[in-house]
């Protein structure tokens, strides 16, 4: 479905700070996959996600969606088939607009916007129903400004906005990392519920090994800009943190292993 083929991406190419962020990375995401992505800091997880989303174009390699080449498609056009949730809970919503205005914007993802009214009366009931699923009482605050919401509430709203028009692929970039553990767990549970009910193809970057093992049907590990581990099915179900670490050591990543990853 979404296919990355030999992607190479340098940052600051030719300069003193040249970084090879993606090193001949290939990945084939199949319909219905829920992939968790792990790797130490600087392994290229976020770069890979941003590359899929079209925030920048790769130096070489191709990206294809359903066998169509989308390598040169700008970010705003890819939005039509991608849903995204960012690490920073403030990035996914517009603070100065109301909850219903944000939802109405998301409701038009990938469609032409014209001179029709932004928030239509007939949409409100549907928005209410959607917000009820969150169980945060936001359905009674349709006209509240989003800046009044907490980080967790905003991230829950972003999850809803990313999926209210069904995306072909859902990209989650450490979307619980900036939240407190309890809120993070709630958002994770919401993620699981939405992904399961809508049968979404999902890519989730995480720093938490337990999360990566528990969720999804496939786990990939990035290291120095390429996929060094790709585990799916039965093998993934039997995975534990210990043998994941073991495999990581044996692949020569020991010196790169960050404290953050060990502690999580």
């Amino acid at each position, binding site marked *: 479905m979404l296919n990355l083929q030999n992607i190479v991406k340098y940052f600051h190419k030719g300069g003193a700070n040249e970084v090879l962020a993606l090193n001949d990375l290939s990945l084939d995401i199949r319909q219905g996959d829920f992939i968790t992505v792990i790797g130490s800091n600087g392994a290229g997880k976020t770069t890979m996600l941003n590359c899929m989303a079209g925030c920048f174009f790769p130096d070489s390699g191709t990206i294809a969606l359903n066998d169509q080449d989308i390598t040169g498609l*700008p970010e705003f056009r890819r*939005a039509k088939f991608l849903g995204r949730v960012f690490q920073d809970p*403030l990035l*996914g919503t517009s*603070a100065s607009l109301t909850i219903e205005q944000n939802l109405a914007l998301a409701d038009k993802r*990938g*469609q032409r*916007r014209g*001179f029709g009214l*932004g928030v239509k009366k007939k949409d409100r009931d549907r928005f209410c129903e959607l917000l009820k699923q969150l169980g945060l009482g936001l359905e009674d605050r349709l006209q509240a400004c989003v800046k009044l919401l907490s980080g967790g509430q905003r991230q829950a709203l972003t999850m809803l906005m990313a999926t209210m028009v069904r995306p072909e692929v859902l990209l989650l970039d450490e979307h619980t990392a900036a939240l407190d553990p309890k809120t993070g767990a709630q958002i994770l549970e919401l993620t699981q519920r939405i992904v399961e009910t809508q049968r979404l193809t999902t890519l989730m970057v995480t720093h938490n090994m337990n999360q990566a093992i528990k969720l999804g049907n496939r786990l990939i590990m990035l290291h120095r800009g390429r996929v060094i581990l790709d585990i799916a099915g039965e093998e993934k179900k039997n995975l534990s943190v210990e043998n994941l670490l073991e495999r990581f050591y044996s692949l020569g990543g020991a010196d790169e292993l960050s404290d953050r990853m060990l502690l999580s």
Partner: protein
Amino acid sequence: MTWYAILGAIEQGSVYGLMVLGVYLTFRVLDFPDLTVDGSLPLGAAVSSVAITAGVNPFVSLFFALGAGFLAGMITGILNTKLKILHLLASILTMIALYSINIRIMGRPNLTLLGKPTVLDSLTGLGVPAYLAAPALFGAISIVAVAALIWFLHTELGQATLATGDNPQMITSLGVNTDMVVIMGVGLSNALVALCGALVAQNQGAADVNMGVGTIVAGLASVIIGETLFGKGGVTRPIIAALIGSIAYRLAIAFALDFRVGELAVSPSDLNLITAVIVVLALTSPQIKGKLARK
């Protein structure tokens, strides 16, 4: 202050209110400090004056001014989004270029409209006295502009414009081409400013290449005064506040011109200094208030 001076302030406040709406659209909505306005105000004046001199109906000439202003704004937007020039610098470049263009359009640095028809004739022709015609007509036009802008910002496109200024990353991920929104938004803003310039020229009977100096500062002062008096938040309120701020600003100026302590009197040439001080005070007052509260 005389009743006559108050009426004059309302007239000036309404006509410059169009410019203030334009400045509000870039400065507050798009988060794009746009100095193009110092050039697009005389641009509108020049285009309208040349058109009237060539025999075009004064009302039709306003549409020419709108179009010219829109183009000027679009150029600033393209310089910023496509050529990646810092917004402030992009707008200064357009502003400087417009100085030459405005002289080219008029063929000289200024153009008089004495004896030529203007939009005000439509009212004075009906027997409305001249001192009432200008505030009435300009007031009506600015109220229409306020209503139109409020409507626009509630449309799908308008909401996307608001979100572009607030959170470009988010609205891009929802499929909006933010470059296009910025180009169109800055264009719309400068169209309003050029319309203002055209009306000012017709009102004072001349277009002058230097009439735009200090426009941005007056616009900012009006926006900020409006926010202080009328509050911000929401979509509708700040737009009405911008128009009220414009009138309040002109009233303050009229009041300042009456100001006299012994030998010392405020002259019209001091206005830019006064305006700059107002903007500095308004921009820093929240910090000063915060500091005082902490003590």
